[in-house]
């Protein structure tokens, strides 16, 4: 029940943020926020959505997945394939428009493929790009592919009762395997070059100042829907069962519930949300490559949720927003150096140290994260 009660507050805060950003945006407002910072904010919302998904699976169901960025990245790759195909095709068409003899469709397709894959020494369309020319099918894949991976992986893992730390290591292995697979040049997704130029939306002539705010809105909408949906899922009887699994899996099983089925449901749902978050994130980032899927990214996601406070949906959002924005600030080179006389602290270098020690302090002294502290204040 608790989660559902937070929905109005959350939506109000989110709406205020969206309103504020829109008023300050270059496209519709005063221009107080640069285009690139609008993108950072939009991407932060996507990360919040991913953290929400992480909280669903970890905070509520007790599955510490250290591979959720695999789903996030897959979502990005799925939409990225369409963006890259459509945009490259437009460029190729434009180039060929001046040909004396108009090009055939096959020539355009070949030219597009050459443009995309010459960087890995290939010129044919790999099989996984089969539907990359269809926006609808690509969007369908954003949901289907992460969901399918989660379904297969989760089914295997849960049915053999792999739990706790073992499951965490296994999910980590999963994302490592996926990133190693994508790193190969001949697996069809351009190896370590990844997909690029994703910030350009084909068929849309509006400039980046508009695109950035539109994507910000879309991310906010996705986050709002994700929050409401997640709150609904965890607040009913389903939520009771799932939290029961987290606290005492055996008890739930002996009550006659198929624990594996519930876990699988939550895991797949969370993977799908992550995939959607990734599909919104990477067009704002502009580029995706296999590094994004490396295990460390998923660990960071878990850490955000821990810092924000797990088992509370808003905690995950707070953690993700706070840490990723602070990281952007300190590593963006804008934070002033601290001059200690004999030694100058440069934040770019020392931020990771501070962040790491911050994790330690939070786990030691605030096991329920920032939201936990917040709850204590409210209760007093």
């Amino acid at each position: 029940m608790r989660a559902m009660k937070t929905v109005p507050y959350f939506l109000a805060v989110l709406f205020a943020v969206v309103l504020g950003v829109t008023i300050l945006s270059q496209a519709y407002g005063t221009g107080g926020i640069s285009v690139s910072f609008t993108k950072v904010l939009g991407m932060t919302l996507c990360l919040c959505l991913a953290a929400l998904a992480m909280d669903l699976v970890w905070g509520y169901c007790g599955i510490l997945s250290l591979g959720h960025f695999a789903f996030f990245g897959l979502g990005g790759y799925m939409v990225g394939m369409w963006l890259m195909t459509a945009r490259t095709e437009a460029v190729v068409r434009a180039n060929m428009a001046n040909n004396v003899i108009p090009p055939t469709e096959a020539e355009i397709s070949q030219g597009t493929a050459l443009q995309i894959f010459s960087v890995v020494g290939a010129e044919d369309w790999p099989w996984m790009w089969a539907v990359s020319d269809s926006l609808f099918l690509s969007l369908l894949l954003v949901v289907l592919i992460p969901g399918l991976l989660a379904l297969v992986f989760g089914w295997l893992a849960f049915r053999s009762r792999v739990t706790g730390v073992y499951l965490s290591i296994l999910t980590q292995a999963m994302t490592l395997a996926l990133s190693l697979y994508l790193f190969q040049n001949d697996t069809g997704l351009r190896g370590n070059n990844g997909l690029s130029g994703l910030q350009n939306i084909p068929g849309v002539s509006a400039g980046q100042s508009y695109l950035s705010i539109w994507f910000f809105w879309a991310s906010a909408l996705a986050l709002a829907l994700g929050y409401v949906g997640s709150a609904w899922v965890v607040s009913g009887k389903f939520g009771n069962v799932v939290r029961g699994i987290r606290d005492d899996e055996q008890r739930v099983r002996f009550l006659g519930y198929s624990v594996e089925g519930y876990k699988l449901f939550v895991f797949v749902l969370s993977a799908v949300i992550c995939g959607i978050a990734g599909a919104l994130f990477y067009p704002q980032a502009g580029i995706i490559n296999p590094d994004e899927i490396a295990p460390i990214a998923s660990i960071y996601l878990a850490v955000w949720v821990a810092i924000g406070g797990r088992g509370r949906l808003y905690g995950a959002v707070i953690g993700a927003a706070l840490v990723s924005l602070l990281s952007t600030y300190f590593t963006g080179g804008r934070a002033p150096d601290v001059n200690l006389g004999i030694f100058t602290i440069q934040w770019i270098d020392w931020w990771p140290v501070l962040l790491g020690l911050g994790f330690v302090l939070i786990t030691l002294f605030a096991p329920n994260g920032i939201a936990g502290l917040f709850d204590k204040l409210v209760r007093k």
Partner: protein
Amino acid sequence: MMKRILLALAGVLLLCAVPSGLRAQTLQDILQEDPELVTDASRRTVGEVLERLVESELPNVPEFLSVWQDRELYFRESDGLFYYVEDPDADELTLIDIDTGEVAGTSGSREIDQLRPNRGVQTVIGSALVQFQLNADEPRVRRTALRAIDRDPEEEHLPLIRELLETEEDEDVRNAASALLTKLTIAFADSDEARVAAIDTLRGNISIEARAVLNPLLATRTEVAETMPEDANIARELEPGSDDLPLADAYEMLVAAELAPPLITDEERLDTLEANIVDGRVGGIPLAQLNTEAARERAYDALIASGAAEAGSTEAEIAEIVAGYAFYEEYRESSVAVTDAAESALASIEGSVALYNFLDLSLDALSLASIYFLAAIGLAITFGVMGVINMAHGEFIMLGAYTGFVVQSIVPNDTASIAIAIPLAFAVTFVAGVAMERLVIRWLYHRPLETLLATFGISIAIQQIVRQIFGTLSRPLSPPDWLAGSVEFNDVVSISSIRIAIFLLGVIFFVALWLILNKTRLGLEVRAVTQNPAMASAMGINPDRINMLTFGLGSGIAGVAGVAIGLFAQVVPDLGSNYIVQSFMTVVVGGVGNIFGTLAGAALIGFLQKGIEWMNPSNTLAAQTYMILFVILFIQFRPRGIIALRGRAAGD
């Protein structure tokens, strides 16, 4: 001796049937009998003078032949004598008497001719020379002669070597000669039976030479015909459009054999179309409509009809044309018996080579397993025995490697520095581990997943601090010289010394840890605390102290592993992250809670990875990918690892 020389010569000098009755005293005398045979030597005539030289039995004949063959013999027109020259590049040449070897005056380079026998003559001289060498008293010289033949084998060498083998007593020379005889027999023998018999002697011989002899026999050329020829020695049929013979290549062969018209590529066709635009139309078709294949074909056909373009096959048609012909690979060697024998001999060699390759691969896998074992064994203690997820384990490995680097930059001697670095790395990471346990981990024993996050925080902090101090560049850690080489067992199997050292280090670690855990008071207490902390402390064991020491031990071992890993890997600040996931997988696959499990896990993962690499050698990334996938599946079927603790104790 004389008889042998004469017999041997008979084969070579068949051409020159003119015996010489004259007996000369010196080389110069023999040459002066007919100097033109030397100055204007030809392949046909040179035999005569060679025979005279051989018959003379003069001891300096081989030296003379060698000089002549090397084009370093000189002839002075003015006195008609032959000379050697001390330094051919000098302005003033110092002449040397060919018989006495003494200086016989000087000469300007203009007054004297350098004799340059042509290639044919050189060969004949070489044969004669080889005979001398084959008959030399020292085995070393005979061996040299065999090597010379091996480099440049000729049919006429065959009887010479048979000859030699009849009397040769030196073991090495015999072996070399019989190997050479086999090679020459295969290459030059008249009958297929002899060649096949020689080929069969090479069965199972894994030396590179044996394969080098057999492989040329199986050289092929690709041919095309309307139907498959009956009489040719065909290696195999080729399917046009397959990987071995792409369609375009097949068609090109047809064009080259004038069996098909030249190919008009799509690009050429487009150029032709563009060149024939009339009033915005090509062949009567408006330009705008030329955006389909069919329209372009029609336009081009119209151009052909009007004579503006050449007829030819288009890319779309070549598959059909190619299908009407037979493509095949034909052996250059015409004898079927020989190619069959060579193929079967090669197959048997491949069999042996595969066996040795397997052995070699197993050694590789063993060393990879040792590396995984070293990287994971510390984790097996902290995670396996204590149940603590230490994400900073990889950073402890990295700290060990950097300790090695620091020691090496202070102590110049490699051996000494490694000897210092190993205990020091243990000490450094032991202290780091104990500090971490005291400050952080002991508060989180009942919350394993949060240990994971806290130690992850520590790991990124350590990594960044190291990056601050040492920079991101790779720091070299050089192994001592005695570890630089490798041990080779034969042409196929070899292993580098450093890998042997790592294997031994792994064995030492394993034994030492087993002893510590099973034979010492500390080990007993560790196991007691692991199994029942409450009972252990009731019996007077201080669990705090034990946890601290165990964690220190696990961390210290990671440090030593770091020194070992640093010897062959790049020492960079994120060295540890490359090992952490693999290390966890090793421990989990092996079975948590005992070091035998880690051993089994490391062996499984190491051998598996090498096995997959062997199937797909070009791609280690793919090998790692599949290895991880296998591990994920493996855990489904044995969730508790290879060596699982069973029963109620393992239940919860």
